[in-house]
């Protein structure tokens, strides 16, 4: 509290002695107030709790997603990938060579021996 000088002390005493008295309530304010708050639930704290709950659920879901991605995705090394690619490539090349009738040894023999076969082969090539 303030250190009063004598003048202030007298003034404050006077003010307290003759302070204006608030008039009585014209209605039953307490009853009115309680009726008013009955229609206004205390929601803020619950809302805060809900928000907290939602935030923790979101963070949890993110963690689960990240950990799931990390642990449940099959790990593939570079070496395995290389082997897979080489095998695929070889397979593709192998199929290609068998499917070409021109480059087979039997075809080469036919070209040398038979003119008609040569023409028919040429036609086949054009059709392709």
């Amino acid at each position, binding site marked *: *509290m*303030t250190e009063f000088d004598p*003048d*202030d002390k*007298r*003034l*404050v005493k*006077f*003010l*307290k*002695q*003759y*302070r*204006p*008295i*608030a*008039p009585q*309530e*014209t*209605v039953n*304010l*307490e009853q*009115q*107030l*309680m009726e*008013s*708050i*009955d229609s*206004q*639930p*205390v*929601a*803020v*704290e619950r809302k*805060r709790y809900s928000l907290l709950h939602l935030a923790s659920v979101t963070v949890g879901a993110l963690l689960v997603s990240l950990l799931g991605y990390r642990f449940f995705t099959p790990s593939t090394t570079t070496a395995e990938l290389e082997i897979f690619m080489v095998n695929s490539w070889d397979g593709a090349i192998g199929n290609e060579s068998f499917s070409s009738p021109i480059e087979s040894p039997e075809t080469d023999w036919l070209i040398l021996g038979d003119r008609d076969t040569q023409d028919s082969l040429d036609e086949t090539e054009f059709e392709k």
Partner: protein
Amino acid sequence: MIKVLKDDRAETPDTQLVLLTQQGDRSSFGELYRRYHKRVRSTLYQLCGEYLLDDLEQEVFLRVWKGLPKLREASYFATWIYRITWNVASDRRRHLAKSRRWRQKQEAEIFSVELAREEHFASDCASRPQDSPDLMQLHYQDLVQRGLQNLSLEHRAVLVLHDLEDVAQKEIAEILNIPLGTVKSRLFHARKAIRKFLQEQGASL
């Protein structure tokens, strides 16, 4: 978990009542109302006058009810409720500034009430040569009220809270959200102004 019997609420500390109210306990809020409504009403009356006093008081407690869950320090309740009271009084002043027509009507009403009081006082004085203590009490109450009305709302708030409601200066600084030095300064000027007014009106201090 706080366990308080309903019958014991009158003896329950404010902090526990605040915590219970934050959990939605309406009867604890009712007890807080009964403890604080006179202080709130008195402060509002000295800051804003009589008009719409019931509505303003109810506004304060509705704001308390709505805002209480946000109050983190239950021990801060007394300061906080004064702060809401101040905010309601300030809002009312802003509202009054907007409605000029209403203010003119209010001034006319105040003038007529004051005129009636003065006439009543004069007739009483004439009929009774010596002032009765009750009459002097009324006269001085009227003087103090007018003296307070002469102050700006900022000065009045500091004077009312400090000198009439016995709120500490540091707490007033928190309530009004101003530095402590400003509280001291306003208190000094408010006292000076009201002392001058009262002395001019013939009050012996």
